[in-house]
């Protein structure tokens, strides 16, 4: 029974991780490359986990620290996309895993991350994922439209995640033992675990 559940989880994760290109290209055929840029990251497990983790981390640290990401995160996606186009596709699996692990651990530890470090981490996540999103573009894809869609969805996703987390956590002075703070820390633990699993997969011979 346990084995079946594990298989189910792995199969679901693989389906989620593998479905991105097909889903996004269907959207492109229907609504064009701008919306392909919008949907592409939302159908990729790495993007969903990393973007959520970054938004939640920033949201828990408070609006004063997090609001920088409203501009920085989309900018990082754009830079990543550009770098990916210039230097070609490279595997980001290990980098994704490392970032998930790092952000997950910071969340689990309820660490008070300085603004500069938060911005640097969020920018790094955005650059890595921007490059990854641009890696499997078809030659006929309009790069400019795709980039516009990707940055728009990056802006909306990070802004809404931060605001929702800030509302969920209520105040910065919330007790570390309140159920809300514990829920966020538990989420961090899960994210770190996913990162660890992904790192193992990436390093496996």
């Amino acid at each position: 029974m346990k084995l079946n559940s594990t298989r189910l989880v792995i199969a679901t994760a693989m389906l989620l991780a593998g479905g991105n290109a097909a889903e996004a290209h269907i959207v492109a055929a229907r609504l064009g490359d701008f919306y392909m840029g919008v949907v592409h990251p939302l159908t990729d497990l790495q993007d969903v986990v990393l973007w959520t983790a970054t938004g939640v981390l920033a949201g828990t640290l408070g609006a004063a620290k997090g609001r920088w990401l409203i501009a920085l995160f989309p900018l990082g996606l754009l830079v990543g996309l550009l770098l990916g186009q210039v230097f070609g596709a490279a595997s980001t699996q290990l980098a994704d895993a490392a970032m998930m692990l790092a952000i997950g651990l910071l969340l689990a530890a309820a660490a008070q991350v300085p603004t500069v470090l938060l911005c640097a981490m969020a920018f790094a996540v955005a650059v890595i994922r921007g490059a990854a999103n641009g890696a499997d573009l078809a030659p006929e894809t309009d790069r400019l439209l795709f980039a516009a869609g990707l940055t728009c969805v990056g802006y909306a996703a990070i802004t809404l995640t931060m605001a929702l987390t800030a509302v969920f956590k209520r105040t910065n002075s919330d007790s570390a033992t309140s159920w809300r703070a514990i829920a966020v820390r538990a989420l961090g633990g899960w994210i770190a675990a996913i990162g660890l699993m992904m790192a193992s997969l990436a390093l496996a011979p």
Partner: protein
Amino acid sequence: MRAIPYLRLALLALMLALAVLMRPSALSAHEAAMGVLEFREVRPGAFVGRWSIEPSIGASRVDLRVPPHCFLRLPEMNCGAKGLVGPITITNLGSNMSVVLIKVIPIEGEPRSYTISTANPVVSVLGTGAPTLEVWLELARTYVNYGIDHILLGADHLLFVLGLIWIVGSGWRLVKTITAFTIGHSASLAAAAFGLIGVPERPLNACIALSIAFVGVEIVKQQRGEIGLTARYPWIVAFSFGLVHGIGFASALAGLGLERRLLPAALLFFNIGVEIGQLAFVLLVLALIWAHRRLGAVVPRWGEALPAYLIGSVSMFWFFGRLARVFVVI
């Protein structure tokens, strides 16, 4: 309150991306390469297809997709008992083949024609007999999706809605304004689709661009402390310009070869699709307004006027581009 300007800048960037980057393909001139494909029903559900006018790229290179239950291997197409009901599309339309006319000649009933073009790449064939439940469901699926697609790809309509939200803010005033816009464009969409009113597409598109410029001016007025027409009577402005935008929506339905008996239902479903897309956009904008307020994201005071001028500039860029197309065949 200063969160709003920052949000405006961000939203503007989003809209500018839509507006500037979704450059209309119609602006690029090319010769229309047309093909005509005829499907003649030889027995119920079975058709013989032939190209009466072959497209310049060659018939074998046309990537024609028929409804999933139909088996196509030209010249034969077999759709079984369900008949030829569902979407037909060509995936490789482009500068070499921009328009394909599909003629369906049933055993009983009138022949029908459907136009597949780069602007309308999917047509929906809805059978010849009395509409069955499957036909209604297919009609709903096709036209709701078509309405959603149309509004999501209509950067000008979305920019106008954004301008309205900008001026009236949130709450009941916004609900009334958006409702008035909906009533306006639904009424004119119906009137245009039934042929009660007819406006040439190119001047109409120029007027739509001008409506956005009007909203841009109203935003500037509001920022200067003046009470403009939109701020005073937002629902009247929304309704009036909704009438103009609705005729624009109707042009999207034109040329689909839709039968008159199914037109009211198609119109209803198309309008539902437009409303779903519009509502999703409004909710997204409101969610972002809320998020910016919650995060206290602000912009320097010097930047507050910039978005309104950018909206005005984009809309006037569209206006002059569209106006040029009224007088010059591009």
